[in-house]
């Protein structure tokens, strides 16, 4: 964490030097990049996406569509090779705005992700449907994924997003960027902007842009719009209310949870028994009888567990 803070300070200094050297030309853009610092007055960064919802085709079967010919719209002076990260302040409705980071290996997490169940993004509801992978319609979606900058329960980086947005829409891009950085050591300029229709509390979708800096976009280059939709579910984006659509999908009623309930994001993917080296589905009966000293919640991927020597429970077959 100390290293991360040091990099933030270095990045801020770099930005200030750039402002000074440019005679304040393009100050607004550079101020917008000052990481984790107060941005005074009109210098506050725009948190509005460069996307016109009228030009986005209706959601059908694809989790994302390309925008601007798949070319991101970064300004030249944003293309620095120093790591930084910026998260917009919440607006008056408590909604997240634009997030941007120049991601290098130094920003990537070195510790396992913790719980984010305490965060309630705008429009948040805990609701389950049988037709949703993992049951929970909404995830607390990181705008800039945890695997990229290690931001865990940062309220400025978490929106109410469908499971489909999280897994089918955003995750593939996060994976691609993370693996590119790990392999090359290069930086990727990465911007994620939630797009709201009017005063809706739940985003219609998110715009994601990425550009690898050192190789001038040869490795990473994209500009996409990911839909905050869930096949088979109709969402009222003003409130977050939802219902099964009437297109022939299973008509199982939604099961609203208590206001303090956990989402898929706060629920671990697996529960480990560190004594037997077995891993279980969180709902497995064996979990209830597991001693606290042997139990460990796990938020990572199945393959990683197996590579660490863990075996799936023969009963719940996770």
């Amino acid at each position, binding site marked *: 964490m100390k290293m991360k803070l040091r990099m933030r300070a270095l990045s801020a200094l770099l930005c200030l030097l750039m402002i000074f050297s440019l005679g304040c030309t393009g100050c607004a853009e550079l101020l917008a990049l000052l990481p984790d610092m107060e941005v005074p007055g009109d210098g506050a960064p725009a948190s509005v996406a460069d996307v016109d919802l009228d030009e986005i085709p209706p959601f059908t079967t694809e989790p994302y569509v390309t925008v601007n010919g798949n070319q991101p719209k970064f300004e030249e002076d944003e293309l620095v090779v120093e790591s930084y990260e910026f998260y917009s302040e919440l607006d008056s409705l408590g909604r997240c705005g634009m997030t941007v980071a120049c991601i290098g290996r130094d920003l990537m997490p070195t510790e396992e992700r913790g719980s984010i169940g305490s965060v309630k993004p705008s429009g948040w509801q805990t609701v389950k449907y049988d037709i949703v992978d993992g049951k929970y319609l909404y995830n607390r979606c990181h705008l800039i994924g945890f695997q990229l900058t290690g931001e865990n329960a940062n309220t400025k980086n978490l929106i109410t997003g469908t499971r489909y947005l999280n897994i089918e829409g955003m995750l593939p891009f996060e994976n691609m960027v993370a693996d590119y950085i790990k*392999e090359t050591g290069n930086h990727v300029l990465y911007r994620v902007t939630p797009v709201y229709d009017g005063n809706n509390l739940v985003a219609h979708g998110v715009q994601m842009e990425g550009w690898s800096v050192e190789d001038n976009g040869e490795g990473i280059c*994209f500009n996409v719009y990911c839909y905050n939709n869930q096949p088979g579910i109709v969402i009222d984006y003003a409130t977050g209310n939802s219902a099964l659509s009437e297109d022939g999908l299973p008509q199982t009623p939604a099961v609203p949870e208590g206001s303090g309930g956990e989402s898929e994001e706060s629920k671990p993917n697996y529960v480990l028994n560190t004594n037997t080296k077995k891993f279980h589905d969180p709902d497995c009966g064996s979990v209830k009888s597991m001693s606290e000293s042997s139990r460990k919640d796990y938020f990572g991927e199945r393959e990683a567990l197996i*590579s660490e020597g863990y075996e799936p429970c023969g009963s719940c077959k996770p």
Partner: protein
Amino acid sequence: MKLIVCLDDKGGMAFNRRRQSRDRLLCEDVVRTAGGATLWMHPYSVPLFESLTGDIKACEDYLDAAGKQDVCFCERETVGAYAARIDTVVVYRWNRRYPGDVFFDLDVGAAPWRCVEIGEFVGSSHEKITKEVYVK
């Protein structure tokens, strides 16, 4: 000819004219897999192999140029049109999900293909890369 491809969980190969992912140790394994045969590829792929030694040749139409005993490393091209000339397919699986707009168009999961070898290794930046070899 022997074809080598890298695929994500959905059979994707590339997105926006760029490979989905890359791994230094995987490239070393590609050269080992080629053995002494000529390893053909598109000029786009050449930088991945710059530090490696092998009989590497590159041209835009490498799938046409490759001979019966040669090996082709394919990152962004569909290969269905070359199916009759391909007798072996080596698939490296990233075991990750990436965005894709070019997908592998040879169904090696169905006859006449059969898997004759499967293994896995840790890459330079990937936790687990699976290698599968299919022959007709």
